[in-house]
């Protein structure tokens, strides 16, 4: 039977197992909305801005490992979605975004709500497609999901002209797809893995440095097994938190610009660095000239272009993290060589000394609400088991430092692009994926206002998100840099004329709380968590000049941290 393009799209999404679609209607996608209206398998979530549609789909993907799906109209619908697409691209998040387009015969004529969506999104997608013939639609959707979810994942855009959604074709959804130009390497090279294992075992001062690739590649269990098998220290990047249990004694915390002293010192002094699913980002390495000066480096990554991009490595292994880790575990079990116990003992002794610096301690006697205290209260009150999204800035770092993630898929933040406004819509996506879970959005008074309109979406769908706003009346990270590097000239970093967030939350039908006394923090958090069915906006009036420590200033090495 012949179906319209719109019906083919909806049927194809069903075939892909899509349950939720985050979107916003408009002229070019009216046929698609009509087809969605006439079915019940896919729930369409109406956001209040297209940026939120992409962030929500992104949050859905980050908390499940499945592709998130967004649907927006042509022109401004597509351009509003770009920030969310770029956010997903930088963090390698599987996502399929369908953008409406003007009629094929109008393309290029500056038609109403026309924009070159393919051209605009090209540099921030894994791939994109313009479908000009309805006969190609089903296969294109199959390819889009295949590309988005395999290899190094990423967003894929399908640009769909309005006439294609009305035209008819036979519907045959391909069961399998293979592409001559795309077949990601999964299995690591056995010779290289063997070299890596030998190098690992020869280490006197080893460390595992692992990133978002371990989460995305579903390798958390394997990583944990391997690290514990060897009794080596491990640090995670901002994107990699949760891939190794943060409460385990071998975990040194996050590394990098605002990483722990022990993680960065262990990195700096190591002799064998085992990098897995991480990309040597500038926020991690500090000054590249001073990075791990004594280390031989092993690097496992599914994307060959990540290897030796910023830092030259000694043993590169291209392959799926899980696959390579399994091979390493097996090889270690079969072999009779063990790590050098004596060297390792001394190494741990040194690390314990570094830990003694207690770099995350903060002033608890100030009489002001400290942001760190709020995150710790959130951690306790949720038993460390919440899904936590964040926006971007100081609060993001405090959440990463003080919420100890024991499981992957729990920490959801825009690490690469650093997109303010991400937290709340991402939390919506997470809540749809995990309706019974506690979802908290740690944010600031700056970030939350970038997608504040989504409080309306949360009301419409009854999403009981717990918003933890660390309100210091400043764009805190900007202010911190201005304090350190611009002699305290706080240009445009003070947030004047803030709304009353309690009333704001209430006007959207939610619960608002303001907490300005440190003694009230725990009680407020407990009360908020008890309101299981309600969105609670907790406005914590925090110490306005608190800084994120430790910190590596620009140009410095990992061993040159500023402690408190």
């Amino acid at each position, binding site marked *: 039977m012949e179906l319209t393009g719109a019906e083919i799209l909806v049927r194809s999404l069903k075939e892909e197992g899509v349950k939720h679609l985050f979107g916003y209607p408009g002229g070019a996608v009216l046929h698609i909305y009509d087809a969605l209206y006439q079915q019940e398998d896919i729930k369409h979530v109406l956001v209040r801005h297209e940026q939120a549609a992409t962030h929500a789909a992104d949050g859905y993907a980050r908390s499940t490992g499945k592709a998130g799906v967004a649907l927006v109209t042509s022109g401004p619908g597509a351009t509003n979605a770009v920030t969310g697409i770029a956010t997903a691209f930088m963090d390698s998040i599987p996502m399929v975004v369908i953008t409406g387009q003007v009629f094929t015969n109008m393309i290029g004529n500056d038609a109403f709500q026309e924009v070159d969506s*393919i051209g605009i999104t*090209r540099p921030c997608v894994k791939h994109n497609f313009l479908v000009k013939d309805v006969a190609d639609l089903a296969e294109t959707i199959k390819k889009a999901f295949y590309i988005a979810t395999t290899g190094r994942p990423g967003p894929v855009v399908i640009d769909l002209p309005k006439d294609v959604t009305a035209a008819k074709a036979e519907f045959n959804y391909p069961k399998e797809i293979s592409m001559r*130009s795309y077949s990601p390497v999964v299995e690591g090279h056995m010779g290289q893995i063997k070299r890596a294992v030998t190098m690992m075992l020869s280490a006197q001062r080893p460390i595992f440095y692992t990133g978002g690739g371990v989460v995305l590649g579903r390798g958390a269990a394997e990583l944990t097994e391997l690290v514990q098998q060897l009794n080596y220290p491990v640090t995670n990047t901002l994107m990699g938190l949760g891939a190794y249990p943060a409460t385990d004694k071998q975990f040194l915390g996050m590394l990098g610009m605002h990483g722990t002293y022990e993680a960065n010192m262990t990195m700096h002094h190591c002799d064998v660095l085992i990098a897995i699913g991480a990309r040597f980002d500038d926020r991690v390495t500090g000054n590249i000239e001073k990075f791990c000066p004594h280390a031989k480096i092993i690097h496992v990554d599914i*994307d060959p272009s990540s*290897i030796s*991009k910023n830092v030259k490595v000694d043993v590169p292994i291209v392959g799926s993290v899980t696959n390579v880790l399994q091979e390493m575990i097996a090889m270690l079990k079969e072999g009779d060589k063990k790590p050098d116990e004596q060297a390792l003992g001394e190494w741990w002794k040194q690390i314990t000394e570094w830990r003694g610096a207690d770099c995350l301690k903060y002033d608890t006697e100030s009489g002001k609400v400290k942001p760190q205290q709020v995150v710790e209260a959130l951690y306790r009150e949720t038993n460390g088991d919440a899904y936590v999204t964040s926006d971007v800035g100081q609060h993001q770092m405090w959440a990463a430092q003080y919420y100890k993630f024991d499981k992957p898929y729990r920490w959801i933040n825009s690490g690469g692009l650093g997109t303010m406004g991400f937290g709340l819509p991402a939390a919506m996506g997470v809540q749809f994926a995990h309706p019974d879970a506690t979802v908290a959005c740690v944010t600031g008074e700056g970030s939350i206002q970038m997608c504040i309109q989504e409080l309306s979406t949360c009301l419409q769908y009854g999403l009981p998100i717990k918003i933890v706003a660390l309100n210091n009346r400043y764009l805190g990270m900007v202010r911190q840099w201005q304090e350190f590097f611009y002699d305290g000239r706080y240009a445009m970093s003070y947030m004047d004329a803030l709304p009353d967030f309690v009333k704001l939350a209430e006007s959207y039908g939610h619960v608002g709380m303001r907490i300005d006394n440190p003694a009230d923090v725990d009680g407020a958090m407990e009360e908020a968590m008890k309101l299981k069915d309600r969105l609670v906006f907790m406005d914590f009036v925090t110490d306005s000049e608190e800084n994120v420590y430790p910190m590596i200033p620009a140009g410095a090495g990992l061993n040159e941290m500023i402690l408190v």
Partner: protein
Amino acid sequence: MENETGALSRVAGLFSARGYNIESLTVAPTEDPSLSRMTVVTSGSEEIIEQITKQLNKLIDVVKLVNLSEDEHIEREMALIKVKAVGEAREEYKRLADIFNGRIIDVTEASYTIELTDSGDKIVEFIAAINADQIIEIVRSGVSGIARGEKSLHA
């Protein structure tokens, strides 16, 4: 690469977005109309070339990539060179074209257009041999390359 609309802009966009040099780029369909073949001439350190190779391979439309410079290969480029040709210069350009195996393909009372197909280096040499103020205009096709011997992109 796949002979798809936009494939060329993906390559061009990659070079500009990542700040790589692009000296010339030629592209046309192959014996298989679903595939285009592109020859890109670029420059950079060993690390940069390695990154360019990896980044190009990552493009979904790229089917196969070979670094021709790593092996024996042939480069050919065509140039059309229009020069002022009056008086003694007419004879001189004729001789010069012969030496370089070029052909004069258009003649007027005051100009020649010379076609030259050779490696990029030879074309540069030829242009250098002509007095700069005698040149009216030059158009170069960019380099096309192919491996020597039986080797091909297919195998």
